[in-house]
């Protein structure tokens, strides 16, 4: 905390500056606008001084890296020890197409993999399902069975590379395939490192890849967490995601607040299953967005880390420091990219990368500049990866820990965002918790209101967007876009037909029957899912067992 006398001096100095130097300038020429706000609508002061952080208590509010409350970072050496994991989310076409992209990325110095599955896999349908028409291989790899998984990871050392999988409602099935594949390759589960997204609440809030109603889907989520805690100790069994909340229109503070609200719901669900908080919380991880307003993003990450540490310690009584650490992956903001003057996106991603790093992320995906037009082409992916490497090697951001700390502005903003998060968490608690807030559409409506507000500000010109509402140019249509062959749907359907004809259908039937029986009890489903995928049950077939038992989720729309 700053000394009272010092503060008094600063106050006097500021007042005389306002009357003198500043006053003179303002009387001649006003500022560019009456009120300045961040992209999230947070009011921004002209100048931040020691007065703005007069209540800051260094020990209590900031502390040291690797120590509670982790405001300054979760590791004691941060990037002086080693850089974050550079992990590009990738997947398109067949398992074979995607495998080729992975091997290319690893050759270029990428240090982890991140699997994008196509929408049918994410929604628990096989490639030959009527709802999969037109979607096969479009936004990710077409994975139906363990045979596709074998091709996807061909010649990739699963004990050396960490793998992240963006799969949620069908997470148990894809993790079961991955674990079975590792077993085939002779790698024991304790050697496997990676992350599975497994965050179904944000699917219901904003991402749309849900299958089952909240109750049963949360059971699958917690079964997976419990299973990993006992059998795959280095696996991050959930990645609580704010990324998509932000993409669908929230502010920075809302992104952090609603993600923490989801994190609280998962933690409570595991505790309700009888687990000790410190037995699973060290393997909870997070996933956030990052926009172009560098200081606001840095403040968001710092505020989130501090708030989560308090939640785990004070609300859940965690004792293991690892339970209190908010470790997270970041992806640059897809929605910030413009199809107008598409090369400008490289600069946006550059600033966002710097913000993610200055904010202390553990792994990072940088968007390719052409993602506003199509799936990323190889050249654009390379620029995106090089952007991370430049920030790591050239910017100096990694030479010292938490470089923005102590900035009057960033510290004040960190406090402000934390207060906003706290306001939301209290409000959600009063409503009866996250599940109630989602069911009543409260979270969805808050996000939609922010999205609407943002659109209005872009259209009124209050918010400038280069190439969109300012510095607009006529330009020729983009060429050389990546396209997925529409015929892939037929190829995958043919593969499925062959798989179903050639597998041992008696063993397959037995495994699915067993899964059905286990799913009716309170028992953990994971071992039965593993048996089913080994017997070559497809994603759709496993998910259908639960569709029959649990029913399908139909969201209420809050438009």
């Amino acid at each position: 905390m700053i000394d009272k006398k010092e503060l008094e001096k600063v106050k006097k100095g500021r007042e005389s500056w306002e009357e003198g130097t500043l006053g003179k300038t303002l009387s001649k020429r006003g500022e560019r606008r009456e009120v300045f706000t961040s992209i999230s609508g947070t009011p921004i002061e002209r100048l931040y001084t020691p007065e703005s952080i007069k209540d800051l208590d260094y020990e209590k509010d900031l502390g040291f890296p690797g120590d509670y409350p982790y405001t300054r970072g979760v590791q004691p050496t941060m990037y002086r020890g080693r850089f974050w994991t550079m992990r590009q989310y990738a997947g398109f076409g067949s398992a074979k197409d995607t495998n080729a992209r992975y091997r290319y990325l690893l050759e270029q110095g990428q240090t982890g993999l991140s699997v994008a599955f196509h929408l049918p896999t994410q929604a628990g349908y096989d490639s030959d399902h009527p709802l999969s028409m037109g979607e096969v291989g479009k936004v990710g790899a077409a994975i139906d069975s363990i045979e596709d998984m074998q091709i996807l990871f061909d010649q990739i050392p699963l004990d050396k590379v960490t793998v992240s999988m963006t799969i949620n409602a069908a997470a148990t099935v894809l993790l079961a395939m991955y674990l079975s594949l590792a077993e085939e390759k002779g790698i024991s589960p304790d050697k496997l490192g990676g992350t599975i997204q497994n965050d179904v609440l944000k699917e219901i809030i904003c991402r749309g890849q849900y299958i089952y109603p909240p109750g049963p889907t949360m059971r699958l989520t917690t079964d997976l967490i419990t299973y990993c805690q006992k059998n795959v100790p280095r696996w991050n069994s959930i990645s609580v995601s704010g990324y998509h909340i932000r993409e669908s229109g929230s502010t920075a503070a809302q992104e952090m607040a609603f993600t923490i609200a989801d994190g609280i719901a998962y933690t409570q669900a595991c505790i309700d299953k009888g687990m000790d908080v410190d037995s699973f919380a060290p393997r909870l991880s997070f996933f956030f967005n990052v926009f172009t307003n560098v200081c606001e993003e840095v403040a968001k990450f710092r505020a989130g880390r501090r708030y989560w540490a308090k939640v785990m310690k004070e609300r859940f009584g965690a004792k293991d420091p690892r339970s209190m650490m908010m470790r997270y992956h970041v992806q640059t903001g897809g929605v910030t990219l413009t199809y107008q003057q598409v090369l400008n996106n490289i600069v946006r991603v550059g600033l966002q990368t710097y913000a993610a790093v200055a904010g202390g992320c553990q792994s990072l995906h940088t968007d390719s500049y052409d993602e506003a037009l199509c799936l990323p082409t190889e050249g654009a992916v390379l620029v995106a990866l090089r952007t991370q490497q430049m920030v790591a090697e050239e910017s100096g951001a990694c030479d010292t820990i938490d470089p923005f700390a102590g900035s009057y502005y960033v510290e004040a903003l960190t406090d402000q965002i934390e207060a906003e998060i706290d306001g939301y968490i209290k409000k959600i608690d009063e409503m009866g918790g996250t599940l109630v807030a989602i069911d009543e559409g409260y979270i969805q409506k808050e996000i939609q209101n922010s999205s609407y507000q943002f659109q209005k500000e872009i259209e009124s010109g209050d918010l400038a967007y280069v190439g969109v509402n300012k510095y607009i140019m006529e330009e020729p249509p983009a060429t050389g876009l990546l396209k997925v062959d529409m015929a892939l749907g037929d190829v995958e359907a043919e593969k499925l037909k062959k798989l179903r004809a050639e597998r041992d259908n008696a063993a397959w039937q037995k495994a699915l029957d067993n899964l059905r029986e286990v799913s009716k009890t309170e028992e953990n489903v994971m071992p039965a899912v593993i048996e089913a995928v080994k017997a070559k049950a497809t994603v759709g077939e496993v998910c259908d067992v639960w569709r029959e038992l649990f029913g399908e989720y139909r969201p209420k729309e809050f438009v």
Partner: protein
Amino acid sequence: MADKKIKIIVAKPGLDGHDRGAKLLSRIFAEAGMEVVYTGLRQTPEMIVEAALQEDADVVGLSSLSGVHSHFFPKVVELLKEKKLDDVLVVGGGIIPLEDIPELKKAGIAEIFGPGTPTPTIVDFITGNVRS
């Protein structure tokens, strides 16, 4: 019937979950005085056309960000024709490569609005081209 409200179905065909644009536009259309029915996610062309028929819609707005527009959008137009709903205005938007647009227009989609389109442009297009 000069002051009859324009009725619009806003639909998300396929498995795509990106509904920020669809929801935002639903609100913008309502503010512009239209009657809006938002279908939610995971609609088949059959479901969308059935909704248009049931609701006696003047306009169908399709949103896709997962690359399935070339498959779904023309199918909706085709089914509308089968149901003798030829005069329903069909518009689309999302992440749609410019090179795909001529073919979509040939198939009967009146206009495609890419990311960053000012919402008044979309509202004006609809009010200017809807059946009278």
